[in-house]
């Protein structure tokens, strides 16, 4: 197990290094429009307050189920999508990062003019959506993306020489025969040859197309490569080739990777650190081996248990109840409380949990006439009949709902067809420290053993 010590050793040394990518309270909301006037009625909160650092030369794995916002985050990081709030900071020195964190720690309303000016200066120099033209060009050169689907990310009407040579031409790096030689060199690096120059993408297999994508990403010798599920469309034997290639290129060029994937065995193999996302927020972040050996968030543990391992039986094989909640109405408190097997009374039980229960109970949801919300935690529910109201209150006090939910229930009073429910209000669960460089957003200090 020499790899383990080497890897975690590397991660422990890294905090002194430069932060190539600092993500601070990043938010990306998509408006939901309705009606003839296309009025905005709500927002899908795809990324909702994510912060992490990516140090030079490291590989950060970003994992989560589909719809958790990992691809949107990747698009914000690579400058393909404008953040709604917060920011992505590129190429910070350790001092600049400390300065930034000090400034951001002050609430916006309390900042002095001097602090604002300082923050603006930092922003135009480093924040991806505020960069000056010149700095923007530098950022775009140094940040490249490899997408999941090589069919749609390679132009079917262009020859390989044009696809791989295009970044070089856009940035006026090379032209004519020099361009061609550079393209051949790039193709050679990814295991393709001169004979492939004048072919179209459809003439290649999936693995070869992904190699072309990688060659294109490397054309400008970038510092950061965002890999958005680069191998999930490939067979294992080809996946192994691509993962080896990515590692080799990282060694040769000193690349930094943001590796987005849902495959835990791949991320365990490739990443130094892992960020686990759930419904737009970070559930847990930490060094790879530590996260795998002792997950501190029940969601991380659930992911590990649901991923079968080829040789290791220790995690077992178990699924998770329920579905990912709607990111337009994320659950209060801990976002995972609707599915968590270790849920407690402090996890953020709210009115929506009652509504969810009504939806699953035969006949009850049709009886529901209206919900008047005071806040996320208290509301008055009106039913079509007194009987339905009484059934709800009876259920809220019985085994029909989880014990933790009953514990969090402060009030459930029935007056005719109206039920007043109130739960103990809870703040959003923040990330807390669990070890060196290891954070998790869970109310439990330690998870009970499996």
């Amino acid at each position: 197990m020499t790899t383990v010590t080497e890897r975690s050793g590397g991660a422990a040394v890294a905090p002194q290094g430069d932060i190539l990518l600092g993500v601070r309270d990043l938010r990306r909301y998509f408006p939901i429009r309705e009606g003839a006037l296309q009025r905005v009625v709500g927002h899908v909160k795809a990324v909702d307050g994510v912060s992490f650092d990516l140090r030079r030369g490291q590989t950060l794995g970003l994992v989560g189920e589909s719809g958790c916002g990992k691809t949107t985050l990747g698009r914000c990081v690579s400058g393909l999508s404008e953040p709604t709030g917060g920011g992505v900071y590129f190429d910070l020195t350790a001092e600049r990062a400390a300065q930034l964190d000090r400034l951001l720690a002050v609430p916006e309303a309390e900042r002095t003019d001097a602090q604002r000016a300082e923050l603006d200066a930092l922003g135009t120099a480093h924040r991806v959506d505020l960069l000056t033209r010149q700095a923007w060009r530098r950022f775009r050169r140094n940040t490249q993306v490899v997408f999941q689907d090589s069919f749609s990310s390679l132009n079917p009407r262009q020859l390989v020489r044009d696809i791989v040579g295009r970044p070089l031409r856009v940035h006026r790096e090379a032209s004519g025969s020099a361009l061609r030689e550079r393209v051949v060199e790039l193709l050679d690096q990814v295991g393709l040859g001169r004979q492939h120059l004048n072919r179209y993408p459809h003439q290649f297999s999936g693995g070869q197309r992904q190699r072309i994508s990688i060659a294109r990403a490397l054309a400008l010798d970038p510092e950061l490569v965002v890999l958005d599920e680069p191998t999930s469309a490939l067979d294992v034997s080809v996946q192994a080739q691509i993962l080896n290639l990515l590692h080799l290129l990282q060694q040769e060029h000193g690349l930094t990777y943001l590796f987005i994937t849902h495959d835990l065995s791949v991320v365990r193999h490739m990443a130094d650190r892992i960020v686990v996302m759930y419904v737009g927020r970070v559930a847990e972040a930490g060094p790879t081996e530590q996260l795998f050996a002792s997950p501190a968030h029940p969601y991380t543990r659930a992911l590990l248990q649901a991923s079968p391992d080829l040789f290791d039986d220790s995690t077992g094989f178990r699924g998770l109840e329920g579905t990912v909640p709607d990111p337009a109405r994320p659950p209060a408190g801990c976002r995972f409380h609707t599915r968590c097997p270790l849920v407690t009374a402090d996890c953020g039980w709210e009115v929506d949990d009652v509504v969810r229960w009504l939806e699953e109970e035969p006949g009850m949801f049709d009886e529901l006439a209206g919900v008047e919300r005071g806040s996320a935690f208290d509301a008055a529910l009106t039913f079509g009949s007194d009987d339905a109201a009484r059934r709800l209150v009876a259920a809220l006090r019985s085994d029909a709902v989880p014990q933790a939910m009953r514990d969090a229930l402060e009030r459930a009073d029935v007056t005719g067809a109206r039920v007043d429910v109130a739960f103990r209000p809870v703040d959003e669960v923040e990330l807390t420290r669990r070890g060196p460089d290891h954070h998790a957003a869970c109310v439990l200090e330690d998870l009970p053993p499996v």
Partner: protein
Amino acid sequence: MTPPRAPAADVIATVTDLRVHFRAKGGTVHAVDGVSFDIRDGETLGLVGETGCGKSVTARSFLRLVPMPPGIAAGGSIMFGPERVDLTTADDRTLRRIRGDRIAMIFQDPAKALNPALTVRDQIAEVFSEHRVPDVLARAGIGPATADGWLLRRRAARRARLPERFALALPPLRSRSAAIDRALDDMIADALAETQIPNPRKVMDRYPHELSGGMRQRVMISQALACNPALLIADEPTTALDVTVQARIIELIRDLQQRHDTAVLYISHDLSLVRWVCDRVAVMYAGRIVEAGPTAQVLADPQHPYTRGLLAAVPSATHRRGELVAIEGTVPELIDPPPSCRFAGRCAHAAPACRRRDPILAPVADGHEVACFLHHPPDDADADDLPTADWVAR
């Protein structure tokens, strides 16, 4: 063929030398080229392999879902059930009776496999109307010997024409017609509840696009298992799903399989999943089975170079980064292949004999078979022509 284990389990289906070819521009593609295996009662047989190895075509041949042309049934047979019906030659009537009733299939992408224009109720009702009309009538409390029974039977089979529907909507048939609807609804709700769908009566009125991926897959499973089939063919049923949902669906299939004693042909490219799901596994490469045997044994002690390569390519904690053992090269073109081991072009042990003739599947241990000259050298070959490997004793 596989020597049966003692005590011999009954075999539900026997595939013998199945060949399915496709006509293509440059010649004939041998997509499935001489595949033989058994599926035993109540077991789960895994068919694993990479893209294009012919596993889906093999599975689809069971229900004759391969379009012909461009497909060509080039030979072989699939004998099914105690009466040994040959599915490759059975007439359409027989096949129609078997499809959905005794052999059911679930597909990779439920969004494509379910009809977007029908509600969940209508999709599942189709199965009962096709195969379970007497049960529907019995459940509605209608005896078989009623004088106007033919009308009600047509109602239950959902085949009533417009004038017949008029008659059914009027007394005296109206109440019994409504009873049939209620009985159908009950049966559909039961089928959905089997797959642990919460509040099935509500889900029944939904269209597939209103459901999540996991829910759609459950609907498809309830549809497939509605008639309690003897054989379930699952073609990568969880590939489109998240891991947490995948695990739930696998648990569900296993649970239902054990309760109903259904045999499952499980197709997957994911070896780590197969390890948890299948009793036996057959590894396919380029249209052939290269290795077959009990899952634990094949994964712990793989004998074919391809199986070994596949297992080594899966990233795990024991691999150092950048040192995954990839299988170099790609799957060969299957257009009119010459007689040779299909894997010879990528095999580290390939020898002249491998390029000249076909290895055949032969046992290396109890129930464990391999098609490789490493284990079964042809009698008349020179020793110099034969492959060697350090893990095989000669």
